[in-house]
């Protein structure tokens, strides 16, 4: 099952994605985490280090193509390099997409890369993709079929309208998704109910509400991985609830 976590910058979407990875591994699932947002750092939130991103590999590949011997195909080389770039943590794997491409033609490379990632993704029970609100990575490089698209919003009315826009954008970019649901992050008792109502008015399903959590704030402040968050923290508990809901939605 492929879950994409998107949302505007600053909504805490990477925190949610990282906690989701933790919940799924806690449920005993084999998880592939894909960092597809060049502006955030899922790897850091998960406490692992990335040696090479797919963006770097893609650039190297394009530079090297001309000099590859005729008996060597860059397709299989790209597949090999992609596997090599996977960070193998104790209970999950992580792939970092890296920065967006430069000038020149990436059609052929991206086409093949999508096939490689699609094949790779089939090896895992759950794939969690942290993606930017523009969905650029999803449409061109990562995958075009998502089971559950989660849109993380802050507690503003504007945040929820963003979810609608992402839904439209995904349709425009022909990214297939079976379910789309909203995650309301850093909710307080005063905002929670009204936001839920508003989302429902717009016809958006709410996958869950994650409360403002002092532990998350503290770890963020110290720049420490969120995996250190204790399992009974309110945010972690809420996200695990969302993970279960996602399994239902994607089933």
């Amino acid at each position, binding site marked *: 099952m492929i879950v994409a976590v998107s949302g505007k910058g600053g909504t805490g979407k990477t925190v949610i994605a990282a906690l989701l990875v933790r919940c799924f591994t806690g449920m005993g699932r*084999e998880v592939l985490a894909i960092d597809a947002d060049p502006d955030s750092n899922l790897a850091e939130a998960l406490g692992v280090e990335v040696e090479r991103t797919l963006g770097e590999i893609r650039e190297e590949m*394009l530079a090297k*193509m*001309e000099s590859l*011997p*005729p*008996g*060597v*195909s*860059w*397709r*299989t*080389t790209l*597949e*090999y390099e992609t*596997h*090599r770039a*996977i960070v*193998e943590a*104790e*209970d999950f*794997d992580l792939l970092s997409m890296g920065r967006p491409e430069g*000038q*020149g*033609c*990436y*059609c*052929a*490379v991206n*086409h093949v890369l999508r*096939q490689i990632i699609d*094949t*790779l993704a*089939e*090896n895992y029970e759950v794939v969690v993709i942290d993606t930017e609100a523009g969905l650029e990575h999803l449409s061109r490089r990562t995958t075009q079929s998502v089971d559950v698209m989660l849109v993380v919003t802050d507690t503003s009315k504007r945040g929820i309208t963003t979810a609608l826009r992402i839904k439209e954008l995904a349709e425009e970019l022909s990214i297939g998704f079976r379910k789309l649901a909203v995650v309301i992050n850093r909710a307080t008792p005063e905002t929670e109910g009204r936001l839920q109502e508003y989302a429902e008015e717009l016809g958006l399903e709410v996958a869950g509400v994650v409360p403002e959590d002092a532990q998350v704030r503290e770890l963020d402040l110290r720049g420490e991985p969120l995996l250190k968050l204790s399992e009974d923290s309110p945010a972690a508990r809420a996200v695990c609830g969302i993970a279960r809901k996602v399994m239902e939605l994607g089933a």
Partner: protein
Amino acid sequence: MKDIPVDVGLIYEGERIRKSSMYVDLAGPKSKGAELLLVVPPEEVEDGRVEVVGPDVDQMEEGGRYPFGILIKVAGEKLEEDLEGVFERKLHYFCNYIQGFMHLNSRDIIWCRISKDAAKKGLKLEHVGKVLVNLYKSEFDVIEKIQVTFYTDEKAVDEHIARAREVYEKRDARASAIKDEDVDVFYSCLLCQSFAPTHVCAITPSRSGGCGAVTWFEGRAAVKVDPSGPIGEIPKGEVIDPVKGEYSGINEYVREKSNGTIERVYLHSLFDYPHTSCGCFEAIAFYIPEVDGIGIVHRDFHGVTPFGIPFSTMAGQVGGGVQSQGFLGISIAYLRSPKFLQGDGGWRRVVWMPAQLKERVRSAIPEEMYEKIATENEAQDLESLRSFLEQKQHPVLEGLKREEEKEAPEEEPAATMPELTVPVQATAAGAPVEFTITFKNARIYAEKVIIRRKE
């Protein structure tokens, strides 16, 4: 499959064995290895034999990493050395059919893994070898005998890698020499039709796609792994013009896939029916009428061409899947093609290119032309270009085109006729007649002209 402790089948293709479920790592980025398939005389193959030089899986330590080599020897009456590469590529697929066995890449950059589950079931390299013998023989009738050797002993792997590299090098040298006339099938790529709907990229040994990513060899590999993908086969058809590079097969294919918009294509010329340009080409070849020469500019060059416009502006005018007279989007690799714009005189027609690009493809430029091609350092506009060409006595000053045609290689005449006999009557009514024969704009190549008196 009988006697094999794990399943074998297409469904295991693409299997990634995760670190936590891995029994051993073979070759890979942190170790070394190579695979090699050789066509040998039948007496050198013991059919069906599988040998393991070094420890087999049951003697390997769990979680360990080992160097790894695969050597396959095949024999058969109809086998040729040229098939080695094709068969060797199959190893990747065949190995991946085995449940719990992961195989990545090719040649001397392979990476294999065996899963804990497979090891527990008793999978050994010996079994992998048996599966390979079986799959090769059932897929290729021409393989009559096959023998498989695995190396896991470090010294043996080192020797195997060295031998394999020698073979790869020889193979590549042979493959690099392949030209359009040596093959019957070309390839096409339709990936760019998303933004250039009438662009059908024709890919031949002497012309790679404009993006530089799809060569003829890559096309051949792509069709095998992704037969319904954007890359397809073009039957070559008849040769219409071997110099400009016109083939009936390409014309028919392009006509169909461009919905009738593009009727004819010259692979190696900027004029009349140039190849369409996609939009993501690495460079542009452009005709400069003022000097009757050709300029080349590539994407990384941010200055202006002698026309006063940069690459980006020109690219906007050239791309989109149309045929633009005198303009052609090309790959950098095409500059190294032996047929590079041969319909227009090839390198002898080139007058300008950015210094960085000139340096990059230096080895492809004929020595006597290198100094005669201006860069942005010598020519920034048409006037400075003209005076540079005059100073260097560039061949375009002499009306290069005619010269080139005279020098066209023997196997590629502009037009051929097995024999041209012109009966000439030297007398009319007993009186001698004076006459002249004039060929205007003729393109005739004859190896020998014989004039005989009529018997």
